[in-house]
């Protein structure tokens, strides 16, 4: 896969027929599109009990009895979960992994796509497999799997002790732990949820429940000294490796760092903390009061509020700007730095920033038609399907990937054509 610098930013329009595939196969499933926009693919049924993947009109060499969860990795490789003779594995660009399992699901990718991990079940034991290498240790149950951004470490909440059916007392003694690369912590907890791996790969943090009532964050198996009524997902500060997490006390939420309050302000809700790439800023979705949602940056909430939801807070690459989605009275809106774009949509996807952070764009949908918005201005085209826009490395062009009139279209447009 080429880096975005090497993508074709000069061809204004490329077209690949898609609807015509319907005539070639019994049925064609939802299309997927490669990050660079050069490929469109779909699972196709070629007969009873026989599936294949069609990419740009050509099928993989080998069909399978079952195929599901077709996705492009960030590096452009095309992956799918496949099955033959009752065994499951991951196929990458049509080639199945050597390892076969009782079941495989939920593939996840490193940021650059070079690592691919799946959850697997074999003989009713559970583990993760990364790049076709399975964990050496498997567990009676496994949840909340994660893969580090660089793809080198994988982790999950794992059951490390057995308990009988309806044996509530054994369960409450603690039967779960967290495992990094298949190696569990020594300490057990009642529950382990939502794990985070530090950027250097040396620490693993997780939400834990010490009893049915005492929640905290554990880092490398050691719980914080403080407990809370509830906690949400931890994040690592990329600058110093400290751990931050939303915590609830006396009915209100705030952010804690290594167990101590990090934000002064309390909220009705606080979740999805996200650091800027440089670690200098932290944003989170918060509810200021009941049904009154916004984004708080470094503890200070925006003035724009939404009565239904706020989601998908994202930082610009330089860490100076934040965009999010808000929903009010049934319609979705894009907010950038507390400024709400003028349009209301039936659906909106997470905004994306240009590399220099100057512009934001988003895929949006209204009345069943998809289009794109850049800095609050709408592209005048409409599509039957669309994927997230991608800015060129210099921020002057934008890649639109759509399906229009039954054809897949790859368009490159000057940003100025839409944003002015």
């Amino acid at each position, binding site marked *: 896969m080429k880096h975005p610098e090497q993508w074709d930013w000069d061809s204004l329009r490329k077209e690949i027929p898609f609807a015509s595939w319907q005539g070639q196969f*019994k*049925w064609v*499933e*939802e299309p997927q599109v490669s990050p660079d926009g050069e490929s469109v693919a779909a699972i196709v*049924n070629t007969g*009873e009990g026989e599936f294949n993947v069609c990419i740009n009109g050509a099928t993989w060499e080998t069909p399978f009895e*079952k195929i*599901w*969860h077709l996705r492009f990795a960030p590096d452009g490789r095309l992956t799918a979960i496949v099955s033959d003779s009752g065994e499951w594995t991951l196929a990458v660009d049509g080639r199945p992994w050597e390892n076969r399992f*009782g*079941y495989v*699901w*939920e593939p996840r990718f490193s940021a650059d796509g070079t690592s691919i991990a799946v*959850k697997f*079940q074999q003989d009713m034991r*559970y583990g993760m497999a990364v790049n076709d290498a399975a964990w050496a240790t498997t567990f009676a*149950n496994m*949840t909340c799997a994660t893969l580090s951004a660089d793809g080198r470490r994988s982790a999950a909440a794992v*059951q490390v002790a057995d308990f009988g*059916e*309806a*044996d*509530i*007392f054994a*369960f*409450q003694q603690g039967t*779960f732990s967290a495992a990094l690369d298949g190696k569990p912590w020594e300490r057990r907890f*009642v*529950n382990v*949820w939502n794990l985070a791996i530090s950027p250097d790969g040396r620490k693993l943090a997780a939400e834990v*429940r010490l009893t*049915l*009532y005492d*929640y905290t964050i554990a880092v490398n198996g050691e719980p914080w000294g403080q407990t809370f*009524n*509830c906690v949400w997902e931890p994040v690592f500060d990329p600058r110093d490796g400290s751990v931050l997490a939303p915590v*609830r006390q*006396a*009915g209100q939420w705030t952010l804690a760092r290594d167990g101590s309050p990090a934000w002064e302000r309390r909220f*009705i*809700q606080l*979740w999805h903390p996200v650091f800027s790439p440089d670690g200098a800023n932290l944003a989170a979705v918060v*509810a200021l009061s*009941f*049904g009154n*949602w916004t984004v708080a940056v470094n503890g200070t909430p925006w003035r724009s509020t939404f*009565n*239904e*939801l706020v*989601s998908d807070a994202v930082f610009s690459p330089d860490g100076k700007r934040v965009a999010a989605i808000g*929903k009010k009275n049934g319609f979705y809106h894009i907010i950038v730095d507390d400024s709400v774009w003028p349009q209301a949509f*039936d*659906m909106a*996807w997470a905004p994306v920033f240009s590399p220099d952070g100057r512009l934001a764009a988003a895929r949006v*949908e209204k009345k069943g038609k998809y289009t794109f918005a850049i800095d609050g201005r709408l592209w005048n085209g409409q599509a039957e*399907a669309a994927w997230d826009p991608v800015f060129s490395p210099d921020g002057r062009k934008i890649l639109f990937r759509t399906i229009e009139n039954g054809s897949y279209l790859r368009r490159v447009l000057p940003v100025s054509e839409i944003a002015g």
Partner: protein
Amino acid sequence: MTESASKDKSKQLDEGLERGMAALTEAKIEKAINRVLTGETGARLKAYVETCIHCGLCSEACHYFLSHDRDPRYSPVGKVKQTLWEMLKKRGRVSPEFIKQARLISSTQCNLCKRCAMYCPFGIDVAYLMLVVRRICHLLGVTPRYIQDTAHSHSVNMNQMWVKEDEWIDTLQWQEDEARGDLPNLRIPLEKEGAEIMYSVIGPEPKFQAQLIYQAAVIMNVAGLDWTMPATPGWDNSDMAMFTGDNELMGRLKRVHFETAMRLKVKKIVMGECGHAFRSVYDVGNRWLGWRMPPIPIVHAIDFYYDLLKTGRLKVAKKFEEPVTLHDPCNVVRGGGLADKARYVVNALCENFIEMHPNREHNICCCAGGGVINAGPPYKMVRIEGNRVKAEQLFAVKAKGATVLITPCHNCHSGLEDINHHYHIGFEIKFLGDILYEVIEKPAG
């Protein structure tokens, strides 16, 4: 009213209560009660406590009271008197045995059905008061074993039946294969981002009632809908934590459910025929998290079927001929206002609909809801004997000719099966979806 009615009925030991009670001290009890009364309740509790004039008009609403020959210990106000009022009066200084009795009363002798709130001249919501008692008992670790186990399942797998992640997906794919016997090109689209609908169910469907998923898939495909089901936790809309008093876990479950829908970018969540789950996603769990309403609209199956039939997306090939009656589930009719739509659906599907009385929001509860059936075998007869009046109601409508009992709720279904069997009423019990699947026009396979 010096002795709890529960002493008469609960002969079987419940380890969850006995061991929980044994670990209590009066100091621990006082602390937990005052934590809840001062820190987790507010104007609502104060208004209810100060407004109640002890008139007892709520009694006539309660199936336990009516079924126990008007024993005042089973009246809604009697249950409050035996539990919360004592805690308030004694400022939390009550015994471990009292807490055990409070748990039995609040969790096995009240279905949180809210019928009594309609009979109260002030609209006092006794179900809320019972939930406050349950919350206290949860914090004290005194919870019936089987429903606590269900809560543990929720905590690990985010579903109530210990269904592991691969088992869920495998079940969907199995049902997809099976349903291709009906419709060769049928799909259960997994993880389809941007679909119009996310269909969510409760844990027992993949565990014991996979045919309901099959039927739903056929209905979705025949109607030509743009739908998906998640291949991750978040598919289960049910919530026993809401009924044990574990509000934090309830919030976690609802967060996963709604965030799964938000991740899939669906416009709405259509849920199967479940009552308590509707209460959890539409009223209680979402609000604990700070959402005033569901952040993604929730459509109960009754409402969904109504829309499909009203708009002609589904057509009836031949109506169901056997005479049917309808049990209105508390959470979706009294709590969700779906009485008229339920009747529209029944009349659209069935030749002969015979109303039971009382009905609509006045209907008598099934006695399984509110987590009572989930408290398990020790309380089966508490439920059945505590709902003799339901059996009488069903006998009356049977005498008018009904042979099939429709109830669009899982707990109602299970609870009414027990009553039907114990009292030898002789109904065949069906979901709306069972009949819908049977009577709609389907393309030739």
